[in-house]
């Protein structure tokens, strides 16, 4: 078990390295002069020259990469020209807001997805199954950014129950209750698609497990149907569900881009969209690396949870 955890931890290193390679390659693929692209078309020629030298663009690609990576490892993600502050500071500040939103959504979609999956599997082909399966398909098909707007119209504009945007009220806000109030709509919106994915997967995993011999054994020894479903079948199905929850972390982190824009949530996603419009490439790069790295860690957690659950996983 400990050996497995250690091996799994070590396996993360090449993935993280590969991730930096991809980001680096994408960024060097910028058509035309990178320094101009970074500084924008209004940059003076002196500035472009200086930046080119500063970025080491006169050196070979591999060497450039290692210099760049070395800087990253020292926490130097460069400076955002549009905000005029270190990229890492800005990204980490924004990232905490994204984590709050994405984490809440992940909890919501896991809870609802799993419950809906179990309910529909338990009542396969019954009307509950049919209705919920359709609801799940609606959830998978609805554009989340549009759903967000509809929810704002309904709950913020018409009913005035919840705030339409932001993380805290401008005046007199700032406490936990205020945060939660602001969190409801974006977190729910963000969780809809992932809920659908998890519900579908849970349903099929449960159906797969319910046909296994050990379920018949449980029934044969007199275990009540409720315990057969939630104790025996669900525990076995969880082995296939957990990695998918890990993958959903990626969808939720990525989907946050839309939701943060719709709800003006001060997270990395909204920052990225603004940075792209302003061609602040270093800021984009920093944001992408931090979010992608956190996704890798989410998946690592999912793997560890799976191995903890399933004693058969040892290799």
């Amino acid at each position, binding site marked *: 078990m400990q050996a497995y955890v250690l091996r799994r931890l070590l396996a993360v290193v090449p993935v993280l390295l590969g991730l930096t390679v991809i980001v680096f390659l994408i960024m060097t693929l910028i058509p035309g002069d990178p320094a101009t692209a970074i500084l924008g078309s209004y940059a003076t020629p002196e500035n472009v020259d200086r930046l080119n030298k500063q970025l080491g663009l006169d050196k070979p690609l591999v060497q450039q990469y290692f210099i760049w990576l070395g800087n990253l490892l020292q926490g130097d993600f460069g400076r955002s020209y549009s905000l005029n502050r270190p990229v890492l500071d800005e990204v980490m500040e924004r990232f905490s807001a994204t984590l709050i939103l994405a984490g809440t959504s992940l909890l919501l979609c896991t809870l609802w997805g799993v419950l809906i999956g179990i309910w529909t599997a338990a009542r396969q*082909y019954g009307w509950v199954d049919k209705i919920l399966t359709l609801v799940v398909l609606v959830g998978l098909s609805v554009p989340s950014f549009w759903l967000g707007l509809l929810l704002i119209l309904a709950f913020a504009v018409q009913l005035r129950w919840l705030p339409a945007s932001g993380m805290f009220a401008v005046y007199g806000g700032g406490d936990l209750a205020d945060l939660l109030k602001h969190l409801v709509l974006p977190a729910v919106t963000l969780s809809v698609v992932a809920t659908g994915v998890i519900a579908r997967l849970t349903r099929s995993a449960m159906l797969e497990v319910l046909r296994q*011999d050990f379920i018949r054994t449980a029934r044969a*020894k007199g275990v009540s149907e409720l315990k057969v479903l939630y104790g025996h079948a669900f525990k076995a199905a969880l082995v296939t569900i957990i990695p998918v929850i890990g993958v959903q972390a990626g969808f939720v*982190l*990525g989907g946050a881009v839309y939701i943060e824009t719709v709800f003006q949530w001060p997270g990395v996603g909204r920052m990225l969209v603004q940075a792209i419009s302003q*061609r602040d490439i270093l800021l984009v790069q920093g944001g992408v690396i931090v979010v992608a790295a956190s*996704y890798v860690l989410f998946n690592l957690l999912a793997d560890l949870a799976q191995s903890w659950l399933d004693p058969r996983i040892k290799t």
Partner: protein
Amino acid sequence: MRTAGIKPALALLFRNRLAGLGAIVLSLVVAICLMAPLLPVPDPDVTDPANRLLRPLAKGHLLGTDHLGRDLLARLIWGTLLSLAVGISASIIAAVVGSGIGITAGYFGGRTDNFIMRGVDMLMAFPYILLALAIVAVLGPGLLNALYAVAVVNIPFFARNIRGATVSIAHREFVDAARLSGMGDWRIVWHEILPNVLPVIAIAMSTTVGWMILETAGLSFLGLGSQPPQADLGSMLGEGRKLLISAPHASIVPGAMIFVIVMSINLLGDGVRDALDPRLRSGALSRPAPVTRIERTKIANLAPSDHLLSVNGLATHFEVGERVYKAVGGVDLAINPGECLGIIGESGSGKSVTALSLLGLVASPPGVIKAGSVHLNGEDLLAADYETLRVVRGGKVAYIFQDPLATLHPLYTIGVQLAEAIRCHRPLSAQEAHNEAIDLLSRVQIPNAAARSRNYPHEMSGGMRQRVGIAMALANDPELIIADEPTTALDVTVQAQILALLDGLRHERNLALIFITHDFGVVAQMCDQVAVMYAGRIVETGTTTEILSDPAHPYTARLMQCVPELGGGRRTLMSIPGLPPALDDLPTGCAFAERCDRARNDCSEAPLDLAAITKSRSVRCLYPGEAA
């Protein structure tokens, strides 16, 4: 091979009403979009500031106008066309490039495969919207760039799926044959591999095209896709959003359109996938109900017997589509405390289904109990409600199954599984139940019971696992144990130990035991009575000594000849020629007649009864005992 099953697949697709609805809506949308130049709608880009933000149903503007006074209906139609074109192009690009990569990796294998798939895994380590953003960031905002970005981030998905499909056929006979005939690699890929992975590509496309439309619309919504004045649905939504409160229709309408398109694509895609998935067609993905479905048309109304268990006229069918497999076709059994009844027959003879039917454990669907009764201490279990049945299961009647690796839960320790069996029937604390579980383990002669109770099933040997299975059956001191081929999966020495253990327990506790097997050697060692089953019916029953010394039914005689006799060598070991009859097409008369060398014409004419030939023996044969 490829065309086989397309007809039933199409039938299934059209039977799925939702998929049909999706197809209709989608083709309607596409048709309207394609006719856009011919429709009597205003130019989508002509501004009219005087008539800005008209509400829907305004004169001349069915859906109203936007903030520049442009007609929303016209913009919606043109925007839909653009969104569809972009989404579909993206998915074609992703499919072509991804499939190319996947086929290359899967076909060439080895280092090529390794290198490519590592790269693909790397790309998949990104949350993919983020990757699309990074690409757009580099290429700059624009609809074409958004299209590329969405296509690129979907390539890994295709590559992985198509690689899997390719690997599974890259070494099949027809590919090897092509290679031996001197065909070049690329020709093989084009003529042999590609046609066979096309269905997989089609499924992958049908599941992703909706996503890609959503994603490109999303990028446009963020202002990173189509740039004004050109507008797809996403950018219409993005522009409309700024006026959300004063003119909600400007954002609701294009969003609803995206939703309608994606929903109908997904409905259709689900239909396609279901139609192409053979497991759904066979009903193999059905969930077995907690109790076998019971639709009894005939219930033998008998005077209550004083047997511990008596089964009368039990019939269990499997209903798969329009076919009905008569797995058990009217079985009578009776057993008293302390007795051991053997049920013997080939695989498929209905012995296990009979055993599982007793407590409603036959998987349903497809199993249905069609007739008969099962009386335990005078109570009909087939008429009992679920709770009554649950209490009997593992309480008065317990099962031991064949393969304890598959029949024990893989993620619970055996101690926990035993304790659960106990606590299902008795209100003990967790600690008490655990102690009792350890007790049970030592009673079935598992050494170091306390330590072993913390093992998972996969950590034990087959023999040890079957001891756990027996311990579990004993947990609540049952009156009857049904052992369904408990030793079949074990090697011979372990088998002897398990049989000895069961026999000892039976005498010690005055247990009734129903022992299901295909091995006359085991019957001889364990059972007082035997019932021989063939094609779902008992063909001969009597005491073990009588049947062993003088089998009356030709099938019994043949079955006994299948067993090698230790140290004897007087008999030749024989197998039975022919196959058992198909259970969905049983003959009218004797089911064994086809394979029987004693069969005469009248054997196949009318159904045969199980007729008594002595006080303790019955046989279902017109000419019994002649060859014995």
